[in-house]
Structures are given as structure tokens and as C-alpha cells.
């Protein structure tokens, strides 16, 4: 009964969260654009889709609170209790790499990046070269996210200040940008944004917060967050480095 009550409250929150999108789209469609919907878009389908979105969001958030959050935090606590930093780092890398390598958004961006790069003549203009570029890019990005989570977890352990590390990361990005082939710069920056999927973010957040609250002398607010920040800067650095040093090693590079 309690569960149903909290579910219905979450449903109300989801409705509130979705209302702005519907209002914005309605306003622009009815007042600014003023054109009838094309035949391929039936109004009933749109409404049904919105119902799916609201119900889906409600279940997702409730599921996070029941499953992913406690699991992530308990796991972090168990690692600290066990006292094995090495295993924790292996886990951190696996989590970052495993959740990124199959990410649909990354696959889409990598495929499009293959087209851009081959059109600009950095690699051969064959579908083979494009595919191998897209695959390598995915591996580079996944390895960078794995590394980012490892660095982030190490930071929580050591209590290093986040802002200095991120600023250092930004400075590296700026310097690398000047040296990297300009076709790759946009791709590199975007790859930082697509790596953080809807399932990874809550899990990684729970991991960080769990670690920071079970290690003595760490403040969850100061030390628990920041893993996602690393996961969005590290891919830029890795992809820019790949553009500077790795691209010429690729098969069919010109």
C-alpha cells in the first residue's frame, strides 16, 4: 500500500517534469509554425507515446531508488570494508568500459564520425576504413571512460581536490585542441557528452557517494560527486590524443 502511494506520487512528479516539453511543443506547433501535422504523425500515436514516456519515467525512477542506488552504495561499502583497492579499481574500470562500449549513442556518433573523417581525407574513403575507424573510436572512448572512473575513484580515496584536476584536464584539452586535426575536434568534444548513459549515471553516482560516505574523513558532498565530470573530460583528451598520434597508425590513413 505504501509502495503504491509512493508510486503515485512519483507519477505526479513525472507529469510535472514532462509538462514543459509538451507546452513548448504545443506553443510552437499551434502558434508559431501553424501547419497541420503530416499524415505520418497521428495525434493518437503522439498521445499514446506521451503516456508511455510518463509511465516509463515513473517506473525508471522508482526502480533506481529500489535497485540501483542501494546496490551501488552497498557494493562501494563492501569494497571499502574488504580493503582491497586493487579490486575496486578493476571494478571501476570494468564498469566504465562495459557501460560505454555498447552505448547506442556512442555507436551512432562513431559511425557518423567515420563518415566525416573519411570525407575530409584523413582516412581512405572506403566503408572498410570507416568501419575500422568507428570501431577504434568506440574502443578509445570506452577505455577513456574506464580510466576516468578509475581516476575518480582514486581521487575519492586520496582526497585530491577535484577542481584542480578538472582545470588541469581543461588545460590539457585546450593545448591538445591546438595540435589535433581540426576535423576531429568537434567529434572529440561530442564524444565527451554521449558517454554518460541513463543507467551509468545513477550507478556511478551511487558508487561515488557510497565510497565517500564509508571512507573516514571524506565528505559525500565534496568527494562523492565528480565521477561523471571525469567521464566527460577524459574522452575528449583520449580522442584528441588519438587524433594526434593514433590516426596515422590506422590502416588506410593518408
Amino acid at each position, binding site marked *: 500500500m505504501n509502495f503504491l502511494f509512493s508510486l503515485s506520487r512519483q507519477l505526479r512528479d513525472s507529469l510535472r517534469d514532462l509538462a514543459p516539453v509538451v507546452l513548448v511543443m504545443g506553443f*510552437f506547433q499551434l502558434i508559431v509554425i501553424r501547419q497541420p501535422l503530416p499524415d505520418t504523425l497521428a495525434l493518437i500515436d503522439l498521445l499514446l*507515446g506521451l503516456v508511455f514516456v510518463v509511465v516509463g519515467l515513473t517506473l525508471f525512477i522508482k526502480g533506481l*531508488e529500489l535497485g*540501483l542506488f542501494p546496490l*551501488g552504495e552497498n557494493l562501494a561499502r563492501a569494497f571499502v570494508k574488504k580493503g582491497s583497492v586493487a579490486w575496486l579499481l578493476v571494478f571501476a574500470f570494468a564498469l566504465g568500459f*562495459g557501460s560505454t562500449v555498447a552505448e547506442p549513442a556512442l555507436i551512432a556518433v562513431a559511425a557518423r564520425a567515420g563518415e566525416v573523417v573519411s570525407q575530409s581525407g584523413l582516412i581512405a574513403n572506403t566503408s572498410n576504413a570507416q568501419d575500422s575507424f568507428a570501431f577504434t573510436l568506440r574502443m578509445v572512448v570506452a577505455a577513456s571512460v574506464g580510466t576516468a572512473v578509475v581516476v575518480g575513484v582514486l581521487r575519492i580515496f586520496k582526497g585530491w581536490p577535484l*577542481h584542480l584536476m578538472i582545470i588541469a584536464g581543461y588545460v590539457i584539452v585546450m593545448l591538445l585542441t591546438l595540435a589535433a586535426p581540426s576535423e576531429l575536434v568537434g567529434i572529440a568534444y*561530442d564524444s565527451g557528452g554521449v558517454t554518460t548513459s541513463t543507467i551509468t549515471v545513477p550507478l556511478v553516482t551511487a558508487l561515488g557517494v557510497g565510497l565517500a560516505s564509508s571512507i573516514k574523513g571524506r565528505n559525500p558532498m565534496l568527494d562523492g560527486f565528480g565521477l561523471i565530470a571525469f567521464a566527460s573530460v577524459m574522452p575528449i583528451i583520449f580522442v584528441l590524443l588519438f587524433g594526434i598520434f593514433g590516426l596515422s597508425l590506422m590502416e588506410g590513413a593518408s
Partner: protein
Amino acid sequence: MSLLITFWETLRDILPIAAIIFGFQYIVIRKPVRRLPQVLAGFLMVWIGLSLFLVGLEQALFPMGELMASQLTEASFLPAVAEGAQRHWSDYYWVYLFAFAIGASTTIAEPSLIAVSIKAGEISGGTINPLMLRIAVALGMALGITLGTWRIVMGWPLQWFVLVAYCLVIIQTLRSPRSIIPLAFDSGGVTTSTITVPIIAALGLGLASSIPGRSALMDGFGMIALACLFPIITVMGYAQIAQWQDNRKRPAANTPGNSTQVSKGDSNAL
């Protein structure tokens, strides 16, 4: 049919992560999961919820967003210009407005941002209001996307915008309360996961392909990068404003780092 495909694809997304977690739990930690039935039920809800969410997005929000993006950038929709004349950047005002409004409203509904804001509210013990945090992020997202569309119209290189934004972030980082910085940096990364990316990508591509001299492939990129940076700026800005108001309310204690939370944070960070 698309429902089944999406369910399968989401499962493929969740399974490797679940395998890693449960693998480490049982092989390395070697302890049973606490409240296993509840955790499994949670996973099931995440799976069903995310799948339904994605199906709904593909059925309603994405086609609408793409349709509107292409309608707003069509030549027939824009104000008329003299034959052969260069279009002024301000002719695209509806595009900027749409970019701003859609960026802000989709960010409010972003599931991973909701997740992070729930955690932040929990940990901060009520000093951070989850909804206010999300509004600050949404505002930054809207600014970033609007600037991104303007950049495509002007045809200026992305690097300039990103470098300026980085400098702004660095300056703000040195000046804002320590306790907000990790959260601010995180909120830059979480905004672009499920719902926003396809719609702003469609807007960028539509804009780049409708303006002569822009290539959809080259200029379509880069919107996401700006959308990741500006939330960092607005979240830190929100914290700075909150701190400033706090200082003004209590002029007697108006010394640097007077609020207990911040000064505690400072000593921990250093």
C-alpha cells in the same frame, strides 16, 4: 514490434552492467546482496521503465522535435530576403527561441539528471533543493544550445566558444563555494543522455543543411559540447548567488567563508 525491439535493446544495455556488478559481488566480495528481491524488482522496473520511456520518446517527442526543427529552418518559414542578399543572423529568431525553450524543457525531464538531483538533495541534507538544481542545469543547457545554433548560423569555429566557456568555468571554479563544485561539474555530463540529444542534433543538422555554405556533417557536431559546458556555469552561478544572498542577510558574519557548510567544506578540501 518496435516495443519488443526496444525492450531487447535496453536489456542488452543493462545486462553487461548487471553482469559486472553481480559478478564482482559474488566472485570478489563473496557476500549475498542485501534485500535481493527488492534489488531485482528495482532492476526489472528500471528495465521496463526505460524501455517504455524510449518507445514513447520515439513515438511522440522525437518525430515532433525533428518535424519542428525542419519546419523552423525551412526557407519558406523565414522572413523574405531580397534576391541574392545575405540573410541576417537575426532572421532565425524563432530558431533561437525554440532552441532555448526545448533545451530547458527537455532537460527538466531528463532521467539521469533527476537521479543525480535526488542524490544531491539527500546528501546535502536539504541545503540543495533538487528542483532548483534541475532548473539551474536546464537554464545552462538552454543557453548552451541557443549559442550552438547561433554559432552554426554565424559559421564561427567551435573552438572559440569552447575555449571561452572553459576560461569562464575556470574563473568561476576559483570563486564559488567548494561544496558545489563537484556537483556542478557532474551536472554538465548528465544533461545529455536520452531525451535531449536526438532533438538538438536534429535542430543542428536541419539548421546546418538549410544555410548555404554549412556542411551538415561538419557543423552539426559541437552542439552537445556547448550543452555540456553551460550547465556547469549556471550551477556554480546559482551557488554564488545563493551564497551572496546568504552573506547579505547576515551582515554581522560577513567574513569570507562564513557559512558553516562552506567553511567545513573548505577545510576538508584542502
